[in-house]
């Protein structure tokens, strides 16, 4: 974790009110992993007292550039949207724990609902770099909100669902999952809470006959501590969670979700990535 002055090098409105921004931040571009995030300070402290968390959307170690993708929905995100090239912002990161891909996974399924794409986008790069096949299922309200395919690596098989049927499958992205869950060794998702809860229900109980479970166990069925990187690596479904944040370093306990252990889990510290079975999807928080 470091405090870094990051310079805006490019800012584009890629979808209505959705911005893709590139920042020069070499010390974050090295060693940060898909699923982790930065906590970025809006300028005007007298009005905006909290930083805003953004997933790493992509990072490029060669150029030292990290990108973030967000929707301008309030005073803080509007402030970021109005930044000009050359402006500098204060980033705290890398924060949180990354996605854990089992080394034996060949086929990786990414599932994104709307802006949730920002949470899994970088994993596409990592997985392709590691020689895995990647299918991305993406859901949005309508064609106007669909993530542009030219922003994805060519190797990704990109399948779209829209609520109104204006592009791709008509219906929810979760409808598409049944078709691919048999194909996938592991699945990684980010999006609205109801979508993640639906995916967790689909994945629950199927774990033993799906995905990484079929890959055969090394080490004779040793059980890893729940929440450990090793345990997550073996889980079929990992989800990236969102929650309002204060500190983003584990100090304020503002950002919790309920764990199956009955203990609140900090999204900023134990997460934002969790194995789906670490969380209590019925708890209502």
């Amino acid at each position, binding site marked *: 974790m470091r405090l870094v002055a990051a310079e805006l090098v490019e800012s584009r409105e890629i979808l209505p009110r959705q911005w893709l921004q590139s920042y020069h931040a070499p010390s974050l571009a090295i060693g940060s992993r898909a699923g982790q995030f930065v906590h970025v300070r809006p300028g005007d402290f007298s*009005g905006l007292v909290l930083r805003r968390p953004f997933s790493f959307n992509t990072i490029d170690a060669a150029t030292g550039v990290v990108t973030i993708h967000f929707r301008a929905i309030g005073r803080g995100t509007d402030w970021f949207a109005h930044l000009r090239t050359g402006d500098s912002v204060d980033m705290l990161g890398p924060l949180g724990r990354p996605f854990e891909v089992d080394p034996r996974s060949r086929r990786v399924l990414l599932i994104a609902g709307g802006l949730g794409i920002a949470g899994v986008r970088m994993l596409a790069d990592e997985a392709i770099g590691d020689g895995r096949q990647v299918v991305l299922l993406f859901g949005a309200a309508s064609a106007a909100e669909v993530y542009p395919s030219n922003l994805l690596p060519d190797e990704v098989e990109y399948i779209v669902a829209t609520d109104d049927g204006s592009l791709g499958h008509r219906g929810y992205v979760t409808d598409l999952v049944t078709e691919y869950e048999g194909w996938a060794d592991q699945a990684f998702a980010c999006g609205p809470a109801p979508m993640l809860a639906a995916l967790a229900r689909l994945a629950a109980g199927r774990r033993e006959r799906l995905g990484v479970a079929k890959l055969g166990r090394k080490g004779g069925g040793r059980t890893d501590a729940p929440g450990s990187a090793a345990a997550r690596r073996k889980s079929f479904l990992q989800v990236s969670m969102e929650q309002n944040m204060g*500190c983003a370093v584990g*100090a304020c306990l503002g950002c919790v979700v309920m764990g199956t252990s009955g203990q609140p889990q900090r999204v900023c510290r134990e997460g934002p990535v969790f194995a789906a079975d670490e969380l209590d999807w019925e708890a209502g928080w």
Partner: protein
Amino acid sequence: MKAGRAASSGKAHATRHRPGRDRRPGPVVEPIGGGPAEVIGRIDLSVELAPGLRLDNPILVASGTFGYGIEYGDVVDVQRLGAICCKGTTLKPRIGNVTPRVTETPAGMLNSIGLQNPGVDAVIERYAPTWAGWQVPVIVNVAGESVEDYVEVARRLEGVPGVAGIELNISCPNVGKGGLQFAIDADAAGAVTAAVRRATDLPLLVKLSPNVADVRPIAKAIEKAGADAITAINTLSGIAVRPDRSRPLLGNIYGGLSGPAVKPVALRIVYEVAQVVDIPIVAIGGVSELADALDYFAVGACAVQVGTAVFADPTLPIRIIDGLEAECRRRGFDSFRPLIGTALPRKPGASSAKGVEYRP
């Protein structure tokens, strides 16, 4: 009563020298062509909040915003802080409130964490050994639902290496009094303070709530009950509404307001309390730059805590310490003591006697 006395009370800003450490103020160099003499060498920023609780400087971090002192370790040199107040600690573990627990508001934020903590025994086991190795004092913030809760937590903290003192968070519902907060009732605030005072020799700070009509009788009761110092303020009660207006935003409906928005309220409370008690006052509320700390000193505080502002700028407390030293040097002071109480009424009796009457 006693206007300005906090400013002249020796206890509030003792400059006693710790043996074995050079704390002598530096020599004063005559200015060329008038103006205050710039001080070369060491400025004394130390402050004694209680017998046995002496801080190297008057800048603390506030309970609930700095965890257990370890979370910001990568980016903050915690050893330089005046002291750390840890997250509210209760007798039994608490899982806290449903989410959302935090939201930004104009120039501030609301939180309703619900005192999530692992309980006093786990706090002692997990964190005290680390604290014991630190030079920076750690003050354990204590919460409870009955006098017995507070007393028992204090007993367990007594004598634990690494625990430098306790700060009572009395903004908690008192189950024995139908859920009425200790902090809004002078008798209850005095009773819980006295009971904890009897149970422990640890330095004892008691934290005021702003959610009362007149804070002065409460502060006096706390002083009378034997508290070493008063800290003020805790958060102001507030709510926010969901963007779709379907219900209040926070899972717990009610939250506590903090940040720059609360500073005028906190400043008023410190100003009022400073005129009725002799024990040291530690100010809390919206401190986000050196000027805020100086304002609090001016109305009688001898130390400040930084809370919400740490989220935006974790290095702020350290920069305020450096800024305070530079300020003293520039003004020719070899300690920060002359900054305390300068805005309090000069004449005893000319205090803010009207303080509360104009308020609704």
